[in-house]
Each structure stands twice: as structure tokens, then as C-alpha cells.
């Protein structure tokens, strides 16, 4: 029997954070479909050890995440493992939207729209984290392919309502989430929607 220790809905555009104890599992459920879920994680005992997109893709020789992928620190240490995935493709390259990068991608008129970098900053501040702690992040349910000539872009997602990705903590980890508020590209189908977060505790061996 597993025990559910947390079951919350994160509203559209909102941040979220929690600490997963080692071996606990976090399910991220895409309720509305095509919702990008920006995600960072840190070793809870030493937040200087944090997710590294570069170390993660280099170790698995692939830019996409799916079942079996291990999210690693900059030192190569496992933080979480993807143990189940009904979507099948998640992004490691695009990083978070920010008010600043929106100004480049879409124009200065987007400068004051909601953005993931601000979500990460405000939620991270609750844990003593600042701007220096924000690095290239995972985007669950976001589809960022690279063409043969290097062209890279956020395209329509492969997700749908009810799809789920489940992560197992390999050590105690702090999880920082921005339920992406982006409305200028297809990462959310131009329509940010809520996601559900479920943390479960597996049965301990006697």
C-alpha cells in the first residue's frame, strides 16, 4: 500500500514547491492538456547541488526526458528518476520564460506579462533561494525538437488531459515548479490550465 502525503491542484500560472523525501514519488498530472510545467529540483540538504540540464542530457545522450531518465546535479548525482510517463516527451532545452526573454521573443509589449522566472524567484525565496540558484530547467509536457540544421523551437505539445509523469526522489529533494503562464507560444496551447500534484510514499519494507 502506498500512502498519499499530498494531493493539490496548482492553479493556472501559479508557482508551487515541496520537499520530496527519498523514495517518495511525485505525479504531475496535466489536467487540461498541453500545459508546460517548468520544474527545478535541488538536493534539499545542500541547495547548491541542483538540477543540471547539461549533465542530464550528456549522461543520457538525448535531449528528451521520458521513463527511465535520471535528472542529475551539475556534479552528475541523481536527484529524481522518471518512473512513469504516459506522455513520452519532455523538454530540457527551452528553459523558463521570463519577462526579459519575452521582450526578445515577442516584443516589449509582453514585458509585464506573467513569467516562469518570476514564479521561480518568488517561490524560491521561501526556501532561501535567489536568482543565482535559477538555471536551465525541465519543462514537463513541452515539446522542443531540434531540426537537422539546428533550428529549435517550442512546438505544439504531445500532451492531453489526464496524462501523467511520475518522478521518484533519489535523495531528499526540494522541488520548485512554475505552472507556466506563457500565452504567446504553443507550450500551453496558448491557454494556461491547472495541473495536479500528488506525492505518494511507498510502503516501507519491514
Amino acid at each position, binding site marked *: 500500500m502506498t500512502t498519499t502525503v499530498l494531493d493539490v491542484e496548482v492553479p493556472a500560472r501559479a508557482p508551487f514547491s515541496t520537499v520530496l523525501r527519498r523514495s517518495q514519488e511525485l505525479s504531475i498530472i496535466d489536467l487540461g492538456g498541453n500545459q508546460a510545467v517548468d520544474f527545478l529540483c535541488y538536493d534539499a540538504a545542500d541547495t*547548491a547541488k541542483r538540477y*543540471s*540540464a*547539461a*549533465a542530464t*542530457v*550528456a*549522461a543520457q*545522450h*538525448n*535531449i*528528451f526526458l521520458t521513463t527511465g531518465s535520471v535528472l542529475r546535479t*551539475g*556534479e*552528475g*548525482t541523481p536527484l529524481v528518476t522518471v518512473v512513469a510517463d504516459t506522455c513520452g516527451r519532455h523538454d530540457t*532545452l*527551452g*528553459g*523558463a520564460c*521570463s519577462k*526579459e*526573454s519575452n*521582450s*526578445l*521573443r515577442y*516584443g*516589449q509589449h509582453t514585458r509585464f506579462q506573467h513569467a516562469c*522566472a518570476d514564479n521561480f524567484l518568488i517561490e524560491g525565496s521561501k526556501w532561501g533561494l535567489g*536568482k*543565482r*540558484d*535559477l*538555471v*536551465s*530547467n525541465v519543462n514537463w509536457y513541452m515539446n*522542443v*525538437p*531540434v531540426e*537537422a*540544421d*539546428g*533550428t*529549435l*523551437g*517550442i512546438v505544439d505539445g504531445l500532451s492531453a488531459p489526464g496524462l501523467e509523469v511520475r518522478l521518484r526522489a533519489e535523495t531528499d529533494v526540494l522541488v520548485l515548479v512554475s505552472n507556466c503562464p506563457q500565452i504567446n507560444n504553443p507550450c500551453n496551447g496558448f491557454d494556461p490550465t491547472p495541473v495536479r500534484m500528488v506525492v505518494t510514499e511507498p510502503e516501507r519494507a519491514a
Partner: protein
Amino acid sequence: MSTTATTYGARDHARAQAGTVVDTMPTIPATGAPAPPGVDPAALTWAETVAGGGYTHKVLARGTRLRLTDLEGDACAHLLLFNAEGPWERLNVADTVKVQWNAYLGESVALLSDQARVLATVVADTSGRHDALCGTSTVDHNTERYGDGAPEGPSPAGMPLFTLAAAKNGLGPRDLPPSLSFFQGVRVDAEGGLEFTGAAGAGASVDLRIELPVVVLLANTAHPLDPREDYTVSPLRVLAWRDRPTTPDSPEWTHTPEAQRAFENTADYLTARGLA
């Protein structure tokens, strides 16, 4: 009695070593180094050859041209950039590839900060073998691959070299984001798989134009996807000289609409700051 048994002898022995020249060392002042054709030797500000497994760092002025050269064909220049005026602004690899719609580094690519400004621009490239996705190597990775990853060991990893270079600029491990690497290529296949494509050969070079005052960190260490059994990395030549920043009439300024907005943001910042 040996010649170094007294303080006088030891002092003479030490001083007699001055002027020794080796292949991998800085030239100080840089104006004493050979200048590239067309460059006034008096404009040189940095001339150094970094050994394989070595690192270096420098604060460079806006308008500097920084040339990296893979002397023997096995260099791998891992690079990080910070705004020297406020190092909380730093290279953002995700924005660099996402905003400009391209995963590969090459001529006219702007190296973007997390504040939507241009830290440096790639203005020349005879290599075409670079990587913005895999970052640098870790102690654990090099220990597993080569038996050692320590900075002073036979096969230094990139992370501890960056950590040392960062520390000497008042920055800590939390300040190190994913890095870029030049001279060892990686390509992405249709399934997202990463393919190591190696170097372009001896003599390839990349020129960066520095757009803001920057802290430059460089680690010359084997690429994490390098499949060769032996730790293989050869000397990296670093040369910088006073030149000019990118201006609205430069092709890089209008290379993409996104780059143009980034250059405009940079100019806006510099104007307010009294730097341009």
C-alpha cells in the same frame, strides 16, 4: 653544499628562472605577443595559451574582440560569461538557443544573458564544431572515464576548473550555470539523440565580440561526450584586443528580430549606466 643551501643562493636560483618561456603561459604584457594580421600590437589586451586540462579567466572591456584558437585540433573551450558590472546577470544557454531558434553556435549568434541582453556575439567561426547543450564535465564523470577528475590531476574535469576560476572573481558554485563549449561538436538527431562530431582540425578559431564588460571563465577540458578512451585535450590559444562593439550598422545587430531587440536592450542598459 648545494647552490640553494643559503638564502642568497636560493634567491639567485629563483631569480635566474625569470624569462623562462614555455608553450602554455600568458604573455604579460599582452602587447608582447604576436598580433594577428591587421591588428595593432598595441591594442592587444590578453595573450595566453591554456594547456589541455587548464583554465583561465579575465575581465574584458566592452568592445574587446576575443579570439579562441584550437592550436592542435583537440582543444575544447568551455566558456561562461557574467556581466562584470553585476555578475548576478550571466550567460543563459536556454535563452540563447530558444530565443534565437537555433541549438547550434555559429557566426552572428548572440550569447544572451538572463536579462535579455547580449554579453558577446560570435563574429567569426572557422570551426563549426561547438556545443550549447551538454555543458562541461564533472569530477565523477572524469573519474569514471579516465580514473581522475581533480583539477591538478592527469584528467581535470570542467566543473572544478570553473569553480576555481569563479572563486577568483568572487563567485561561488551557485553562480555557475550551464556553459557553452567550442571546438568539439555535438549534433541532435531526429529522435533527440546526441551525436559527438569532434573537431574541425588544427588551427580552427572562433571570434567573440564583447558587448558588455564581462567576466570570462574558460576551462580547456575534454568534452563530456568525447568517446576517445584517453583523456584528449590540446592547448587553447586565447588572444584579445581592443576593437569595437556591435553597432546598428553591423550585420549581427539585425541578424534576427530577436537579436535586434537584445542589442537594443543592451544599448538601453549601457546608456542608462553611462557606459556608452
